[in-house]
């Protein structure tokens, strides 16, 4: 597929520089039309992947990245969709396989998918209050009450402690050589257990 085919038809699309495949930034308003055009006219018949991404310093903060595959020509295309007001239209009607991917993106980032047939969490349990792949979410996790109240009543433990001490080799994004490769949460060690 020539990248001009898409940008001519949808002038709001922006061609982004990329080394491995044609990459476009697609506004949420055009997403459904673009995906349908790619599927029906250009042969991108298989949804390879759909995932969320978090850019805390950008506006809008969240984005959805879609990879489509043309099984006839073995060609990929990548669509970046910035989530305006944390919401993106669902493409599950065009690619039913997007259903679970979108549920996961909602679960991990809190991105809403407008028109999704089944907007539930998928990997975490339904009452889980956080979105763990957001950048501000700590690696060691945040303690939340067990989902099963009856179990908590019997065991006497409302919270299950995370089975690690601040996580494995943790980097805070800076140079790792400037810090010891060890658990970040120093307040919680073998000598000073949590709580």
């Amino acid at each position, binding site marked *: 597929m020539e990248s001009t085919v898409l940008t001519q038809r949808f002038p709001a699309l922006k061609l982004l520089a990329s080394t*491995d495949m044609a990459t476009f930034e697609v506004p949420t308003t055009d997403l459904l039309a673009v995906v349908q055009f790619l599927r029906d006219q250009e042969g991108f018949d298989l949804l390879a992947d759909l995932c969320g991404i978090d850019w805390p310093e950008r506006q809008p903060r969240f984005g959805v990245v879609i990879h489509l595959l043309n099984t006839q020509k073995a060609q990929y295309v990548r669509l970046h969709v910035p989530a305006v007001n944390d919401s993106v239209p669902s493409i599950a009607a065009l690619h039913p396989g997007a259903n679970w991917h979108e549920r996961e993106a909602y679960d991990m980032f809190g991105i809403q998918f407008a028109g999704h047939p089944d907007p539930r969490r998928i*990997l975490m349990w339904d009452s889980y209050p956080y979105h763990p792949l957001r950048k501000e979410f700590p690696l060691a996790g945040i303690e939340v009450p067990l989902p099963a109240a009856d179990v908590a009543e019997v065991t006497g433990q409302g919270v299950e402690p995370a089975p690690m001490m601040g996580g494995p080799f943790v980097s805070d994004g800076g*140079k790792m050589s400037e810090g010891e490769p060890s658990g970040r949460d120093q307040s919680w060690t073998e000598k000073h257990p949590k709580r």
Partner: protein
Amino acid sequence: MKITKEISLGDVAARAEELRGENMTLNMGPSHPATHGVLRLSLELDGDKVVKCDPVIGYLHRGDEKIAENMTYNQFVPYTDRLDYLAPLANNVAYAIAVEKLANLKLPARAEAIRVLCCEMARVSSHLLGLGVYAMDTGAWTVFMYTFNEREKLYSLFEELTGARFTTSYTRIGGVTRDLPEGWLAKVSAFCDGVERTIDEVDKLLTRNGIFLERTEGIAPISKELALAYGLTGPNLRASGVPFDLRKDKPYSGYEQYEFDVPVGTKGDCFDRYLVRMEELRQSVRIIRQVVKTMPGGLWYADDAKKIFLPPKAKVLTKMEELIQNFMLVTEGPQIPAGEVYFEAENPKGALGFYVVSNGGGVPYRLRIRGPSFVSLSILPAIVPGNFLTDIASILGSLDFVMGECDR
């Protein structure tokens, strides 16, 4: 006095509405032998027929994508072992190639050939287990013994190559951890002879087996259109009649040098998925033989990638420059330029994809894992309803999924 009561079938049919009971909700799993791990199917049953199927996943969620953002590229290799833990070598290779693509790194021929060998051996190992448990779930217990026997031999070969039977962690960004052991290729050849005999035996046990045919033929057919719509990949897609194989259509790691056929099904039912995997086993053995025959000499890592691959140990202990290089690599990780890449490899379960976003440096900004098992399971609500409860064992076995990769 003799009391007889006649029940005519015609009457029952006429009274169907009156005789209809309530639908039953049944949880299959999370701990059920046919779910191969911790998958829960929330089923709605009308008698023995499934009306609705809602898979509940996440019991094995470890947060691999979060963990990846907090460690260097090489530290994440052991985590890839635990995605599809039935083919860890293939995961290692897929991950390494994805990051190398981002670094625009070209590997020597020997490194690529070793990786192809690893991938195909992993495929044989995964399919052997997949077929064994599939047969066991449908009542043919013996097959499992045959295939597991061969798989053990394969694991001994993995142990000799990588130091571990199961969690191999064999690749590093820019190459593999160590060269092939001496005399190892001859053992691989010997293994190929043995496994071919086993495949023939399994073929004789299953392919014309009346019970197995009854339980798989015509069960849960997936049409070409449905398979594409749900994004199925790998053997499951090919069984539905789509001749798409990343090794052929988008070759990586030098797959284009080897001759092999891509088996394609026609009906996409459980039996077709079995046939495709059987033939893939034979084709994998064919590839392994070619790699063994044409194994090139040279280095097993990219020598010019000073900021990515660790220098040889002997040099680290004797030379200053290599010592510094070693220290920087271990503490800061392989230096990967900024950018994004999406790479899919043809793994035993389907296309395993890695979407890597880098801001430069040794830690990925975002690492997304596209697990083929996750996608294969997402089709269950579409194909399970209408089948009998007992067919679920066949359907799950034929889809050949693994929860480590589905839940990540």
